[in-house]
């Protein structure tokens, strides 16, 4: 079943197009990573899905309904970011208890357990927490709600490394026991890639790719060695990135459709094969044609 379907969806802020003609669908009970550079349109897309923003044109269906002003969508969705507004007079415990009355699958004992584990005092107030602790509390809310559609928009802002790791593990464990549709946006792909099933890569408001994460990791391969030989071996291949090293060597990232026999040729020619991290593929795919940061300094 498809939980989210968009068809030629667009959203403009004044003259800027944040989402441009986007068509995609997200299946039930998958963890999807929404990845993109700053300003790629991640938050805008998520807010439209959550019914917090109006689209400009196109179609959007969440649980088969237009999400804006839909009770069904708000009852089945939780949207976690670092801008959540809570009543000022509520302490953390009050917020959790109130959330329990909103969400059908709410697990209060899990919420309390996580609160204690992350050393948050139930009587504390949200506004008095540090940035990282606020984020931690927000993700506790997100996990414990067990919403059929759970959206985390850059949830780990301000968290330290240990807390981030614990959060991803907690999310995965709870997902294994209670499968649901989860969207996790981030620009730190290497941190979340292991727990993802699918990846959705946005670039300048458009879909760059949407595929199983295991496919993305096999999409590209890096070759390092003599430029002549590398160029000859990769003649007709799609190139994602290349740089020269020293006098006559190069490093080239190409689409990985080498056959077993070709791979042996590469090895025999003394060319090194290097894996390309998913994170790097994403940077190559979204870097555009402006050249690299080096070019800014090379202008005279």
């Amino acid at each position, binding site marked *: 079943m498809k939980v989210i379907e968009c068809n030629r969806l667009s959203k403009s802020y004044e003259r800027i197009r944040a989402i441009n003609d986007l068509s995609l669908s997200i299946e039930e009970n*998958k*963890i999807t990573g929404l990845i993109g550079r700053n300003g790629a349109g991640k938050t805008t897309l998520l807010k439209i899905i959550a019914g917090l923003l109006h689209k400009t044109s196109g179609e959007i269906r969440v649980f088969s309904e237009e999400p804006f002003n839909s009770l069904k969508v708000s009852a089945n969705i939780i949207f976690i970011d670092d801008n959540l507004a809570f009543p000022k007079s509520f302490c953390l415990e009050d917020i959790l208890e109130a959330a329990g009355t909103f969400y059908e699958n709410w697990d209060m004992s899990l919420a309390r357990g996580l609160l204690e584990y992350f050393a948050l005092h139930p009587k504390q107030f949200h506004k008095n927490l540090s940035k990282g602790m606020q984020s931690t509390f927000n993700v506790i809310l997100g996990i414990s709600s067990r919403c059929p559609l759970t959206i985390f928009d850059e949830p780990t802002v301000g968290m330290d490394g240990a807390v981030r790791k614990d959060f*991803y*593990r907690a999310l*995965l*464990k709870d997902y*294994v026991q209670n499968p649901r549709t989860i969207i996790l946006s981030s620009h730190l792909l*290497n941190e979340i*890639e*292991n*727990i*993802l*099933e699918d990846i959705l890569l946005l670039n300048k408001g458009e879909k760059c790719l949407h595929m*199983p*994460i*295991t496919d993305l*990791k*096999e999409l590209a391969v890096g070759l390092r060695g003599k430029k002549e030989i590398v160029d000859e071996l990769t003649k007709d291949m799609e190139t994602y990135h290349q740089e020269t090293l020293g006098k006559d060597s190069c490093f080239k990232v190409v689409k990985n459709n080498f056959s077993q026999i070709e791979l*042996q040729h590469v*090895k*025999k020619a003394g060319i090194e*094969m*290097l*894996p390309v*991290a998913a994170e790097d593929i994403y940077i190559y795919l979204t870097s555009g044609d402006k050249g690299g940061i080096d070019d800014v300094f090379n202008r005279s």
Partner: protein
Amino acid sequence: MKLNTEGMKPLYVQVSQWLETEILSGNIKENEKIYSQYQLAEMFNINPATAAKGLNILANEKILYKKRGLGMFVETNAKENILRKRKDQNLKPLVWELVMESERLGVTEYELVDMIKTAGIQIREGRNYESDRV
């Protein structure tokens, strides 16, 4: 449990190889139930779909078989199948690398065979390969 996230080997291949090692070492016997995709997901901290992909590789290679609604079980000849596969897929490329490097260094076939024999003896005696150099 730790998987190598940097290497050339996809995570699901690493999962399937870990399962093979469990079968070879006798930790999971023939016709016994193997870990589910969910157990593997928790053990390795990976998405259950990735773990399922690792299990499916082994099902396609007749190392595991599916019982509807019950999960996956170890095939009767699993050990032999794994050994045959590893000889073909792991050992062969290693031997190729070995021979290629020897050619580059100008090591003769005789020397190479001799080195392999010596290494065999040292490994069986539990010695370190650097020990005879001092």
